């Protein structure tokens, strides 16, 4: 895992029109690349450069919205290159204050199954299901084994967005154990609320119903977006979204009985996620992924 250094390419700086600078550290996803991006965007936020309006960290890249009337996007790029020089390669020292969160998930659920069957004409494999396809192209002998792998190790939230509250989750396992699937050939026009999807090397939960291009694998009973902040997790944090960039999520498989039980708690307004706060050290994780995961689960479940 430690050999998985960011050697793919040079960082690519580009302009997204007049108001965005897009920085791609690598075309490929890896944890070391992500941690470098994290270090750069944190430093950029600390420096509070006038004209930097918004910083959006993402998986192997990040994006900055700039006010070009105050800061020429080319000058911003020079600043970003300087920060990369100063921060890059020092992600060993980085530790992140984070949470490990228990997130119940029902895989191979009836709701996403119904939707995915409606859109077979947009899928790589019109004859099967998304789970069967994912199992096959990732070399699993059965769909059940594939499902086990999806829920076996926790995930890191490496990007937020698409719509408010959606977490892109990268599984905390060495690359040879990471699942990878393509997005739909053409995006669906429909995805159920709280669907658990997978695209590229990322798992997501869709906060609301809508369009989507990820493979549909399951459904989460608990909301991750609460526009009215009705549930205590949202009201107490004064936020309409629950997950944060840098959270660690442990997707725990549940059956329909437990799924329905969580739904009932949500309806009653009493549902709370269980989570614990902890310090996450990327370098320690890279040195011992399974040991770090076991220790984090121990913190969560005791």
């Amino acid at each position, binding site marked *: 895992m430690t050999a998985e250094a960011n050697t793919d390419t040079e960082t690519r700086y580009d302009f997204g029109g007049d108001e965005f600078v*897009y920085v791609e550290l690598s075309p490929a996803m890896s944890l070391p690349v992500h941690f470098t991006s994290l270090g750069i965007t944190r430093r950029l936020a600390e420096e509070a450069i006038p004209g930097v309006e918004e910083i959006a960290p*993402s*998986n192997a890249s990040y*994006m900055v919205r700039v006010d070009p009337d105050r800061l020429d996007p080319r000058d911003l790029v020079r600043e970003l290159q300087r920060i990369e020089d100063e921060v890059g390669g020092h992600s060993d020292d980085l530790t992140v204050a984070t949470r490990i969160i228990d997130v119940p998930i029902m895989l191979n659920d009836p709701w996403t199954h119904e939707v995915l069957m409606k859109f077979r004409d947009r899928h790589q494999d019109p004859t099967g299901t998304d789970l069967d396809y994912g199992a096959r192209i990732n070399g699993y002998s059965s769909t059940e084994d594939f499902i086990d792998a999806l829920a076996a190790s926790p995930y890191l939230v490496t990007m937020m*967005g698409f719509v408010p509250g959606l977490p892109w989750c990268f599984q905390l396992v060495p690359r040879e154990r990471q699942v990878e699937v393509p997005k739909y050939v053409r995006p669906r026009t429909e995805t159920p609320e709280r669907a658990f999807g997978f695209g*590229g090397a990322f798992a997501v939960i869709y906060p609301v119903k809508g369009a989507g*291009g990820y493979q549909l694998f399951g459904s989460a009973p608990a909301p991750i977006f609460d526009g009215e902040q009705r549930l205590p997790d949202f009201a107490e944090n004064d936020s309409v*979204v629950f997950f944060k960039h840098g959270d660690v999520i442990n997707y725990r498989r549940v059956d329909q009985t437990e799924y329905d039980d969580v739904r009932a708690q949500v309806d009653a307004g009493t549902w709370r996620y269980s989570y614990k706060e902890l310090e996450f050290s990327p370098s320690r994780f890279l040195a011992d992924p399974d040991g770090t995961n076991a220790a984090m689960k121990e913190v969560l479940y005791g």
Partner: protein
Amino acid sequence: MSILVRDPGLETTVQDTGRLGYYSIGFPPSGALDSFAYHVGNALVGNEPGAAALEAVYLGPTLEFTQATVIAVTGADIPAFVDGAEIPLWESVAVSAGSVLSFGQLRAGARPYVAVAGGIDVPLYYGSRSTYTLVGIGGFQGRALRAGDELAIGSDARDPRAGRRVDPDDVPVHPSTAEVHLLVGLHSYRLTEDSLARFTDTEWKVTPDANRVGYRFRGAELEFVPREQPFGAGSDPANVTDCGYPVGSVQVPGGVEPIVLLQDAVTGGGYATLGTVVSVDRDRLAQTKTGDKTRFVPVDLDGALSVRRDRHAALDRIRSALA
């Protein structure tokens, strides 16, 4: 003081300058798609910049004012009437208590804006009054207006006055082929050179799938460069490792039907983008409708910044003239 919605039109929403600052948790900016028409409307009725207005599309709403006030209709070229008498567009007009604003058939453009002295008074949601219907937040109850809705009007208009008028030379025309400037880049390297040239040579047709989230076009097929797929992207040629999407960026899932993302768009995803429409030119896209044509004119960063500066200077000049 309020507005009673007698007929909502096709999809009329409350919009302002947008919900900025929450991109990193997935909130797109929302806000008026044609920001020029929106800003000029506010200047005409004597509002502070940033007051909320109404944005309609294709079909205008029918609105009753419960008290005398000053309004202005800007944006699309569409006949507008107060109590049955046609009123000039791009001009502030006094309405009486009980007056009804209605619209005829669209002549050109797509989105009329109704500015009202004092602005539409809905609660701020994450710093903005803009409606974001995709998740049902902001604006009036998080949704497009319906018949029977009653909208409160703010009371802090700076200087409401009828008879302010935009110089006819400053009124945008809405040609059936819109030209928008495009800064090519982002993942443009994923497309073949031929395809990139074809993209800027083609007159693209706006499909029925064109709304505040994005505009989808038809007109040519584009090809991707063969590659060894980077880990994390997914195997489809149009896939990249998921990243942020600039507002105005253009993606081409499957090589057909490019999509330009607009103010209610998704903030990120995993489809390759080939460039970004210059921010001020989203105004022009917002005034195209299904069946209209669009050309993407390539510019470099200096070109993009100068298009932006010119448009902002024009807006400043119009505001001073109306002040």
